[in-house]
């Protein structure tokens, strides 16, 4: 089986078959992570570049480990120490990477749509590691993988996404991906943190957290981006925590076996209480492990490992 997509830019445009193929492949990749020697020769001779214009530990490390577990060479470019500081444009950076012979570029960028721009310039696969407020497709895939692993299905699940939906690329990717797979999604946060007309994407929207969480199969908490406070979108972290923070009482409104998810990093005590973050319902650590498995699957499928023999 092969992916229909050449690049992984957004779950909005990803065919359902590709989502299924990635999730199925990730299942067998996960097994490798638990081996004592985590190394298979699948991508030997391939070079994967991570190009990060924004700080990230989790996503970049996850991709690098995924590549290394399959024996690819990895190069990491952090813009703080690169020629971007000398004013080099993204287009020129991309051309440089192309002529150096990289086989795949994973980019995180603060501007939405930058990965689409990069994909137009490059003739090797581009993977979106998070672009502005647009999408974070591999996070959406690893979240779906985690839900499917724990619940055995995606179809028919009710997923509540709570927090700063406006700025969240994770929320957008999850809405597209989950809707595609037959789940229902409700998003919740203060009205200033819900983007306009989000219902047209297929999600319900509410500012009442109890209403959103009630009978949910999955409660996904988003990181409150405290740096956005300067724009006055919410008055204080204290009030946010009181009105929208996920506590034991609120989580108890969900189904008894509901999962609690968070893409991390968490602001403990603000959007999520430690009591629930560390509870058995929490899948937060699984999400990290699954992230490596999903990214292994994507690299494997994009870089030729998925070709039929």
């Amino acid at each position, binding site marked *: 089986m092969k992916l229909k997509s050449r690049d992984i830019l957004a779950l909005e445009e990803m065919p359902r078959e590709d989502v299924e193929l990635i999730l199925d492949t990730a299942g067998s990749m996960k097994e490798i992570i638990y081996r004592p020697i985590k190394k298979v020769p699948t991508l030997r001779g391939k070079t994967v570049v991570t190009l990060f214009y924004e700080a990230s530990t989790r996503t970049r490390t996850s991709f690098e480990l995924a590549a290394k577990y399959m024996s690819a060479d990895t190069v990491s470019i952090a813009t703080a120490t690169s020629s971007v500081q000398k004013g080099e444009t993204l287009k020129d950076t991309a051309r440089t990477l192309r002529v150096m012979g990289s086989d795949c570029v994973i980019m995180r960028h603060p*501007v939405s749509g930058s990965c689409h721009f990069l994909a137009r310039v490059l003739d090797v696969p581009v993977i979106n590691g998070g672009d502005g*407020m647009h999408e974070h497709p591999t996070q959406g895939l690893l979240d779906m993988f985690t839900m499917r692993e724990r619940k055995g299905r995606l179809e028919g699940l009710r997923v509540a996404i709570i927090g700063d939906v406006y700025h969240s690329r994770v929320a957008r990717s999850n809405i597209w991906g989950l809707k595609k797979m037959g789940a229902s999604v409700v998003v919740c946060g203060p009205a200033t943190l819900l983007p306009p007309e989000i219902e047209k994407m297929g999600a319900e929207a509410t500012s009442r957290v109890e209403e959103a969480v009630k009978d949910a199969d999955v409660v996904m908490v988003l990181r409150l981006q405290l740096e956005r406070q300067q724009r006055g979108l919410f008055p204080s972290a204290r009030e946010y925590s009181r009105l929208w923070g996920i506590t034991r009482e609120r989580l108890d409104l969900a189904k008894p076996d509901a999962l609690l998810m968070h893409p991390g990093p968490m602001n403990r005590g603000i959007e999520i209480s430690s009591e629930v973050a560390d509870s058995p319902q929490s899948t937060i650590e699984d999400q990290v492990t699954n992230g490596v498995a999903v990214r292994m699957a994507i690299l494997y499928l994009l870089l030729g490992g998925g070709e039929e023999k």
Partner: protein
Amino acid sequence: MKLRGEPEPLLIRGGRVIDPAQGIDAEMDVLLGDGVVRQLGHDLEADGARVFEARGLWVVPGLIDMHVHLREPGEEWKEDIASGTRAAAAGGFTTVVAMANTRPPVDDASMVNSILARAAEKAVVHVLPVGAVTRGLEGKELAEMGDMAEAGAVAFSDDGHPIADAEVMRCALEYGHTFAKPIIDHCQEPSLTRDAVMHLGYWSTVLGLRGMPAVAEEIMVARDIMLARLTGGKVHIAHASTRGTVDLLRVARTEGLPVTAEATPTHLCLTDRLVHDTAYDTSTKVNPPLRAAEDVEALRRALAEGVIEAIATDHAPHHRDDKEVEYNYAAFGISGLETALPLLLTELVHTGIIPAATLVERLTAGPARILGLEAGSLRVGGCADVTVIDPGLEKSVDPDRFYSKGKNTPLAGRKLRGWPVLTVVAGQVVMREGGVLA
């Protein structure tokens, strides 16, 4: 304007003459001589004149674009008077009104004179300068509007920079009233559009781009209408783009206030969905942004009804380096002179949304009326500015063949039907079959 000797007499024979200012829409001949329209009628004698056979073509008054950016002085790598006016000629325009936000801006009489002098030397169509409303386009102190009006400024505008301070706008309207020139306002409440790059709505939500709400425009339009009511000064709303703006204009019209408006071909024909469908192509980035389908619908209705009296391109050429970057970092603007007419014919006239005569009116007599110009008609004795259009000619948009230095258009590759085939400025043929002659 650069002329190559005295214009020869020219007989444009057998075309469909559409001159809304005179109520003409009929097949006839047009005879030009000595730079003026000599005669309109049937079976006119050529009498030594060159003949242009126009059977099956439309013969209309030279098109007037009351809103262009020629980028000279200061940013000549993006455009200059020579390239910008050639683009105008190629697009069928015989007059362009040049906005004041050059570098340095046109904010005193010497700058107005300088633009006119440069145009006399290099332009191939008429160039009419706009003076700034405020010194340095800073929105604080009024520029010397009286001097600029005497020097030849046809209007005043800080276009590109909304006049945020209501008191400054009020003074501009009161003071400018003396000179009977409109104040053209780029209506946008800046606090609502900070860092925003497209229209606020469903597609900005999907794309994760910061959006400009329609009300950012409407608040300022409402304010300007109230200030027009207070002062009696003429307000012209540049590039109206929202349904709410149209509603406000209707109110102003009902009251008979001196408020006029223009819309661009871009906002009349394209929606914000294009940003999504082109996967963030920066050529879709324009200010005001491409709006939602219901806004486009409202603009079209307002144009048909005359609530919007003029079409202007807001031709905003940029260098490719300003556009081949991430969406947020790209410059705002579309290079519009060479695609305006074919886009409007394809989307509005051939689809039956607007009659040909209405379109011609909004591109000729409409802007002339707003600016108080003796132009926009084929009246006998008037300046021989004529545009001939082949309404059936089909061509694809090829930015590499633009005369404009700005190749920034979201229409590249799009097939359009109805192109200008002859542009005559003061009796002089400056464009024929798409090729600029001067």
